[in-house]
């Protein structure tokens, strides 16, 4: 569904991604693991169109995403839930959800309010807080809001950058339960995670990213080998 080929992204003279290739299959949860500084967030930002890559191709459902800015990529069906949530703190929960639909044209406003109702059904806690400023929500609630907001753009594939960061284990379980549920309902998900254990519980396929390159890929079963986990987190090898 989402094909990435030889992606190279630099920050000035430093190459953060040195030729990353991966594939996220339709209806699957694909997970990217790796230590800090491996380039996971850079990868997410490049795919979402926030960073411009040097070379490489990205295609979603055979549509080329290269060179398109974030708004266009969103319209093509790729939505990112960024690390640290990034909700609009001064806007209310419902306004945040409306913001998620920026990419939808004005004509769709009826559909948009239907979508919001659907979000409230799926995330009842958001309904309870619908007119509170998003800044007042707890970390876990903000994560749900960021997720719901991304879903408002009706994506074909959902990208999530470290959804567990800064959250207590109980909340993390809740979030991952929602991720599993979304996937069961048919959503394709590309997930970046530090918490390997939790990620592998939901992943269908995974990639190991280290210093800007994919060092390993496989299914969770193949990961039973400890050596690979060590390689993922200590680098080298």
């Amino acid at each position, binding site marked *: 569904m989402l094909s990435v080929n030889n992606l190279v992204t630099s920050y000035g003279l430093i190459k953060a991604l040195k030729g990353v290739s991966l594939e996220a299959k339709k209806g699957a949860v694909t997970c990217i693991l790796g230590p800090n500084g491996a380039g996971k967030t850079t990868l997410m930002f490049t795919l*979402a169109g*926030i960073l411009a890559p040097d070379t490489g191709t990205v295609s979603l459902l055979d549509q080329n995403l290269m060179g398109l800015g*974030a*708004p266009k990529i*969103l*319209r093509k069906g790729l939505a*990112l839930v*960024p*690390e*640290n*949530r*990034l*909700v*609009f*703190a*001064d*806007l209310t929960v419902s*306004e945040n959800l*409306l*913001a*998620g639909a*920026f*990419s939808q044209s*004005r004509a769709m406003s009826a559909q948009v309010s239907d979508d919001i109702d659907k979000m409230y059904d799926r995330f009842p806690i958001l309904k309870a807080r619908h007119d509170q400023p998003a800044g007042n929500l707890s970390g876990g609630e903000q994560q749900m809001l960021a997720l719901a*907001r991304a879903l408002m*753009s009706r994506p074909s594939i959902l990208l999530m950058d470290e959804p567990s960061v800064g959250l207590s284990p109980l909340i993390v379980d809740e979030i991952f339960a929602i991720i599993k549920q979304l996937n069961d309902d048919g959503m394709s998900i590309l997930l970046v995670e530090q918490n390997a254990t939790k990620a592998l519980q939901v992943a269908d396929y995974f990639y190991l990213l280290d210093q800007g390159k994919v060092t390993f890929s496989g299914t969770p079963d193949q990961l039973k080998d400890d050596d690979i986990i060590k390689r993922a987190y200590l680098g080298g090898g």
Partner: protein
Amino acid sequence: MDMLQTSIDGLMMGSTYALLGLSFALVFGVMRRINLAFGACLLFGASLAIYLEPILGWGAWGLFLVTIVGAALASSYVERLCFAPHGKRQGDVTAMVASFAVWMQLDEISSQLLPQRTHAFQGIEVPNFWWGELFVRGDQLLHFAIALVSILLLYLLLYKTRFGLLVRATADSSETAHLLGAPVPWLGFTIFLVAGILGGLAAFMILSADGYVTPLFGLWSTFKGLVAMIIGGVGSLVGAVLGGLILGLVETHAGAALGAEFRDMVTFGMVFLVLIIRPGGLMGVKIYRTDSLAQERV
């Protein structure tokens, strides 16, 4: 009674300052940038209005229209030349500096249009009246009403329309808004336009009340707008309105009690104290902005 009279005069003055402050707060809120050429844009609008008056012959309404249109045009020009070309964050200071250069440019263009030091500015004729023991200037009351209506319209625009949501989201976090598909550069341009219109309106009202325009009006209105915004809390719209009103009140009372010379000094002193003691202003805005992506210095 005198106190009440002074306070009423102060609030009238303050309502125009509120509009000036709002213009700055809108631009700063959405783009995190300061347009130093703002006052010069207003001066340009007013100068153009006076210059075209004999040609158009539309009287006070002509002045009204041309001041606003001129200010809006100048504001758009500044946005295109000084703000659009410079990238986010690193470009913020450069943009401000460029606007500073264009301030000089617009000031001189205005001097070319109005070569004399002082020019009459004839506003709309409104009768004055007495309300009990209080003297109310008709034109100032009209201006106060216009300012109120403008603020109300602005509120409706920002909180009840899709455009307004785009603006507020971008003001909250332009990176996130961009991620969600907001046309951030176009929004920046439109905000400058709105700020120019508001400013032009304020300029018309101030100049009509004064009855004349001088070349110093550019610097003066830039300063008043900045002060209103700072007292209220940089970037806060409610703060800008409150700041403008307070500035008007303090200024008028200081002028009544101590004389015109001291009036300006009281303003400078008040702003200085606010900056040293509570830089976040009335609304307590954070002056170091913590974005999830990075910590930016304002």
